[in-house]
């Protein structure tokens, strides 16, 4: 009897697990008319769907999960420990990102659009960002208080009837958060992510009026009296002429669905095929966030918006990087705290190190002296910066899942920004202090170099392969960006076809490989390219002959 009960319970548990896994599988709703094409540069994920229900990743649940549950789960993840054995024998058990095309790139989608690393954005366009510069026209009517976040502010309707969120810079630090947000969001946009239309603004008390309903107390029980507004403004930074320094963020058009979870898909979104922590653009974002010191990249700083596109209210979900103000040297309350970017809020690893060393361990951030005495910059530096040691406040599941391949892709995007482009992004911050601009440019360039040196040492930065004049040509990105001189490359070739005698290893003195000299009869080549004398992981490139006997690149994988 007891055995029967136990067996039934076991079976029930299995059914529950199976049910959970089936219930979580969106395949049943998918439209598969377009099929799968690994060579596509467009991931067609904006197919018309009904509006998904509002669902938001909860901040406190996420905090508890990432601080307590996940570390414990990982500590007691027995299968993961078992996999150490095959891993030590060379088996690859880590899961690579899913939404990657045959050329090791991320196709355009509702999350990401290939921009600067494939076609450089002219600096004057980059400075403008995603849209033409539109500023909130005064006077501003305050409709609501600002909910959440550390910065003070309010929601307004401008003289043109547009809705904006106004975020004040912290008292004593004019242009600190607004400047950091503008620089970072401009670079995030140029990298390929969707960002809102933000603008740095300055205003005076007389530019504001409190909405009549809000003054009396609106239907939601919300009230803002003159004294409440004075208290909000008290927390804001002012310029020498007494005007306030702030960031204005235009409301994103569409129906707000809430913050997505980086750990799973959005419920009800049939276009959302890939678990978010297996998306390349979210994993590789780590490198960009590390470069820009975007230390608060939590779920709540992303936003999903439903955009109706048809008459019958069908539409798709767009995914935005919403708030990157906590970056560079900025924090909501003032200059960034020294440990921001170096430790999680609850960092068990560092706590354990301090415990066993009786507090005598010296954390890297204690050596990071990043306060140049410029209020608009806050606390930002490059000397102690180590690109691979960057940490966000809450550990991001997508960042944790990042592989070397994803990291290399992120580094490629960071490396694609030229000095002129970075200067243009800093210009978008509207800094009034020229010292702030100079310091940020110098620091970002130094950090960029560290990012490139680290990742291009891990993975051979050989990219952008093309067949030209019977040769396979490629770029050595490290050489292109000037961190190394001319060098030699090693190619291991495996061929398929009538004549495979030419299979073997070759040494190249320049980034090109004459194909016809190597093999005349092969129909398929598999090349493993590496850098002579370097331990960087090689690049795998596959070539096939077309019907017209021309070679085409069919597959690329870095690392």
């Amino acid at each position, binding site marked *: 009897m007891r055995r029967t009960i136990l067996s039934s319970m076991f079976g029930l548990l299995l059914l529950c697990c199976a049910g959970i896994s089936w219930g979580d599988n969106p395949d049943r709703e998918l439209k598969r008319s377009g099929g799968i094409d690994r060579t596509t540069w467009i*991931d067609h994920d904006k197919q018309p769907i009904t509006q998904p229900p509002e669902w938001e990743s909860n901040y406190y649940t996420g905090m508890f999960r990432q601080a307590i549950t996940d570390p414990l789960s990982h500590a007691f993840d027995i299968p993961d420990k078992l996999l150490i054995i095959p891993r030590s024998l060379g088996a690859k058990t880590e899961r690579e990102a899913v939404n990657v095309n045959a050329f090791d790139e991320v196709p355009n989608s509702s999350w990401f659009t290939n921009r600067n690393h494939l076609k450089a954005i002219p600096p004057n366009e980059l400075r403008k960002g995603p849209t033409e510069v539109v500023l909130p026209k005064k006077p501003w009517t305050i409709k609501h208080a600002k909910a959440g976040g550390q910065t003070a502010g309010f929601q307004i309707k401008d003289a043109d009837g547009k809705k904006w969120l106004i975020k004040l810079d912290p008292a004593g630090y004019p242009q600190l958060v607004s400047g950091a947000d503008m620089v970072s969001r401009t670079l995030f946009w140029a990298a390929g992510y969707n960002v809102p239309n933000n603008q740095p603004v300055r205003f005076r008390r007389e530019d504001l009026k409190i909405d009549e309903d809000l003054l009396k107390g609106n239907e939601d029980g919300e009230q803002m009296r003159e004294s409440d507004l004075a208290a909000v403004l008290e927390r804001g930074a002012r310029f020498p002429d007494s005007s306030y320094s702030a960031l204005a963020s235009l409301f994103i058009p569409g129906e707000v669905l809430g913050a997505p979870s980086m750990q799973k898909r959005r419920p009800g979104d049939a276009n959302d095929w890939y678990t978010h922590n297996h998306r390349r653009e979210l994993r590789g974002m780590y490198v960009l966030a590390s470069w820009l010191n975007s230390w608060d990249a939590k779920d709540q700083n992303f936003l999903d918006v439903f955009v109706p596109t048809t008459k019958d209210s069908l539409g798709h979900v767009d995914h935005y990087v919403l708030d990157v103000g906590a970056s560079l040297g900025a924090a909501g309350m003032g200059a960034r705290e020294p440990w921001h970017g170096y430790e999680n809020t609850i*960092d068990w690893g560092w706590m354990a190190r*301090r415990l066993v060393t009786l*507090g005598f361990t010296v954390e890297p951030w204690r050596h990071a002296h990043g306060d140049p005495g410029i209020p608009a910059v806050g606390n930002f530096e490059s000397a102690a910066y180590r690109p691979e040691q960057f940490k966000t406040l809450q550990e991001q599941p997508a960042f944790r899942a990042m592989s070397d391949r994803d990291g290399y892709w992120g580094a490629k995007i960071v490396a694609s920004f030229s000095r002129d482009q970075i200067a243009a992004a800093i210009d978008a911050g509207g800094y009034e202090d020229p010292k702030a601009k100079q310091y940020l440019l110098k620091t970002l360039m130094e950090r960029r170099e560290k990012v490139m040196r680290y990742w291009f040492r891990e993975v051979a930065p050989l990219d*952008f392969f093309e067949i030209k004049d019977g040769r396979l040509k490629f770029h050595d990105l490290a050489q292109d960006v000037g961190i190394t001189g001319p060098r030699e490359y090693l190619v291991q070739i495996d061929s398929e076809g009538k004549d495979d005698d030419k299979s073997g290893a070759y040494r190249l003195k320049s980034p090109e490989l004459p194909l016809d000299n190597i093999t005349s009869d092969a129909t398929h080549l598999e090349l493993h390219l590496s850098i002579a004398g370097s331990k960087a992981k090689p690049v795998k490139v596959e070539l096939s002959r077309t019907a017209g006997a021309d070679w085409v690149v069919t597959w690329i994988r870095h690392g």
Partner: protein
Amino acid sequence: MFPKYCRLHGFLIVGLFLAAWVAVPARANMASSVGDSTNSTGFGDTTWTAPDPPGSEDPSQPGPRVAEPDRDPTWETALRTPFRVVFFPMRLLARGMELGFKQFGGELMSPKPPSPGVKVGVGIYAGSANDVAIGPTVKARDFLIPDSKFGLFAGWSITDHRRIKLTESIADRQPIGFRLIGSYDLKPNRRFFGIGNDTPESQRSYFRLEDINAEGSLLFGSSPLQQVRLVGGYSAMTAKSGWKAEPLLTEVFPRETVPGYGGSTHELQYGATGDFAMINNDVVPSLGVHLRTELRQFQGIRESDPDFNQWLFEGRGYVPVFAPRRVIAVRAAWAGVKPLAGSAEMPFYRLAHNEGALAFAGYSSRRFHDNQLAILRAEYRWELWERREWTLDAVALYELTEVAPFSSAFTWDKRRTAYGGGFRLGLSDRSNVRLDLAKGDEGLHLTLRIGNIF
């Protein structure tokens, strides 16, 4: 045609010119080394275009996807399923805790500034691990009296510990303020081991203590660390046969050998207490001195009630070890009671004993009773975690303690020692949380304390 030296000079000049012609662009290249490749046409330039960049096709048009939806590989599912089944209860527990944190996390992590008005809720009081009380709370701010705070908690624990506590403070954190505390506390299983430093642990017994207390304080000084308090109030205590634990006191000690057992005492008390701190950080001091004192006189209301003085002198000192995050902290405390001339006999429950702020590391609470009590403790504290106003320190401690009937009876030979470690979470200048595991002469003891403790 030209003299030899002219030809030589000519070659030199041409050579130098050529060298300069080659070197200048080389220098220019060096200057535009890392990333400053504006003038070249490679990757990372402002004119860069990758070979065959993607077109601008709209993802909303019908078309293919780049990959199938992702799911766990079959081998991984097969490997993980047995563990998922085994750990299913833990996952349920974790999800439950996450839901709880979703509900109360905001209040815990980002408490909103208190707003005026009356609020009713549920409160928890943890006396010890098995003495967790839950009950209703009423909190009011600026209710009837401006700049006032009112609090009422009534709780009943799983060990039948009943507690009611009322607090009212007016002009808190002002130069002059007032505080009223009233409490009723009934615990049916308080410990008693006998009176003196040498009582054996095997004499552990239990009794019921009912404690009613009301105290008003006039506060001078806005900071609790720089404050003098004039206090006065009423105290009634009753010690009788207990329950929820065995053996009972009368099963271990003859009734007549335990002064005050079976009866009650009613006292009026008055006096002064104070804190005088010169420390560099109110929550986690690393340098400075903190002196504390309490002087009270108790007057029995009835003839059978004792008249006595009660005192506490305490000093705390802090010295950093090369950095404020590593601190050596020392504490010395001397507390006691002294009956006045002609007083009735002191009941055992009003003697000095190790409990609350005077707890001994490595010994159970109320392990020792006597007229006087002394504590000497040294700690090494080091910071593990610091976020905003919260700081978690690890602590290694060594403590000497003793109780004695009078001051000259304290002897080095009779000292009790304990050593151990723990954690100290600094919350505010009034409150911190300590979890200590210490080994005394009688074994290991785990203690959890919350309040204004060392």
